[in-house]
């Protein structure tokens, strides 16, 4: 099958800092890809190049058959198909949860307010926070906020979802509720790229794990292989550190 995300020889620099080095990556439709690696290895930067929150200096990125380029309309078109969930939620604090969720469908997709709200309520119901729809983000717990942020992205009916450490800012007792939503999403066939330190989640849900270090993909494979039988010394060290901290 045609890959839905394809990166070819991608290189990126921040000034003189070389943060992505010769990245080659293909993601199949419906695949769940987990990205792990030490801090500063370029995981966030990698997934942020896919919706062009970060431009690249070398290489090609093709998303859903469209190559990313400078053209703003092209970039906005890609962003409509790619949802993103951030570590800090980044809900819009001046809007209710319902308005957060319906904003993009009405303004970008041109849905009617009624239609957008009906769909929003369905999704909020699905993640268990329909009763919070009229509240403002600050009135919700961290776990509820992150679920709302996932719904906000899903409301655009994206083909691909990017997650950048979605549970790292949460209190431990709230991590489970967010991971459950992501599990369900994975089962429903969504293409997902997930940066996370939740190894349990990776083991259960990932089709493939890639390990990054110093801007390179140093190892990749099915989760059981990466976790029980890593080939690279650096992968072993990294796994050792996060599993026995």
């Amino acid at each position: 099958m045609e890959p839905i995300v394809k990166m070819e020889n991608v290189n990126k620099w921040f000034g003189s800092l070389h943060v992505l080095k010769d990245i080659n990556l293909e993601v199949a439709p419906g695949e769940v890809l987990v990205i792990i690696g030490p801090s500063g290895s370029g995981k966030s930067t990698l997934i942020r190049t896919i919706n062009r929150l970060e431009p690249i200096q070398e290489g090609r990125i093709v998303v859903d058959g469209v190559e990313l380029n400078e053209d703003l309309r092209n970039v906005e078109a890609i962003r409509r198909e790619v949802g993103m969930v951030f570590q800090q939620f980044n809900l819009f604090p001046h809007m209710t949860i319902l308005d957060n969720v319906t904003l993009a469908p009405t303004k970008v997709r041109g849905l009617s307010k009624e239609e957008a709200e009906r769909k929003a309520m369905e999704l909020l119901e699905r993640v268990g926070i329909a009763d919070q729809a009229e509240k403002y983000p600050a009135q919700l717990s961290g776990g509820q906020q992150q679920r709302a942020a996932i719904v906000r992205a899903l409301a655009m009916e994206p083909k691909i979802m990017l997650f950048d450490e979605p549970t790292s800012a949460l209190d431990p007792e709230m991590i489970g509720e967010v991971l459950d939503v992501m599990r369900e999403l994975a089962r429903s066939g969504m293409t997902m790229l997930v940066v996370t330190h939740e190894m349990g989640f990776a083991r259960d849900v990932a089709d493939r794990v890639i390990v990054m270090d110093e801007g390179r993909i140093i190892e990749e494979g099915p989760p059981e292989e990466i976790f029980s039988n890593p080939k690279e010394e650096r992968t072993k060290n990294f796994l050792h550190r996060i599993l026995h901290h």
Partner: protein
Amino acid sequence: MRALAWMKRNLFNGVWNTLLTLVTAYLLYAVGRAILVWAFTEARWQVIPANFRLFMVGPFPPEAIWRVWVALAIFLALVGFTAGVVVRRRYLGTAAAVAGVLYLLAFPVLLPSSRLGLLAAAFAGGLAWLLAGSIAPRLARRLLAPVWFLGTLAAIQVLSGVPSQRWGGLLLTVIATFFAVVLAFPLGLLLALGRTSKMPVISLLSTLYIELVRGVPLVTVLFLAWIMVPLFVPEDFRVPQLVRGIAGFVLFAAAYLAEYVRGGLQGVSRGQWEAAWALGLSGFQTVVFIILPQALRAVIPALIGQVIAIFKDTSLFVIIGIMDLLSMAQVVLSNPKFLGLEREVYLFVMFVYFLGAASLSFLSRRLEAAMGLGKR
């Protein structure tokens, strides 16, 4: 008992504090007593009712005064409609009570026709409020901008039956403040966005303008605008004094507003931009729906502070010969009948300015509280 304990704790704890309290109390007593005695025995307050019309509308021709009432009715209707859409009910009681007290205070000095005019205008406001409450909230919200636009045009059209040279007093002060704010606001927004823009020329020009204006006194900008504006229009077209005056305020206030807004823009985290972009919103949509609302909310107190400053600073109109509230004081005092009544007249003018500024400041705090809900 509790009051005593409080006093002991806060006013008389220690020798120095006790001394300070006593001295302050004595000073307050002496000054307050002197003022009160003067106000109730010596002061000749008749000068205020005798010139009330002059203070309120200046040389506006009495036979055309209905135009003021119609304009006021339109304005209050706009305010009422807006209140019906955005303000919660419990503040309306406060507003109505304040309006009622002011009305009763002014009642004795008003002509019978004015009493009626004021009532009618207030009635229009109430009606508009009811109307706003009775139509669908979403529709009412959508109507706000066009209603204000058309209403303002209509009010000005009605007032324009009398040439603007004959507008004066509080009427003129309010009109000048209103237009200075309404016009300075968009200009300030553009300057703020310009200064934070990534395009170097735009950013440089905006910065230059802002710093230049902030570096000179208001009086100089006023004079300059007053002299310059006629140069930009065809020679045989006479620009009214008032427009030239307002132009100066707009140019001046925009620079300050821009800096407040810029502060607000910088307070919005990068994550907000990214979340909006990631959803596919365009740059323009991101600014309008996500960034500006948050930036403006954060600086509402500063923005209203600027509005209050404009309201008070219109008193500088005195120097370019526009007949605002303060210059009416001079007109009254130059009348031989009212010689030597400076204290009465200026105290009254101060009181009017204070009332205006205090209600704006009250509004600001209410707005902040109402919008605080959406803050992180």
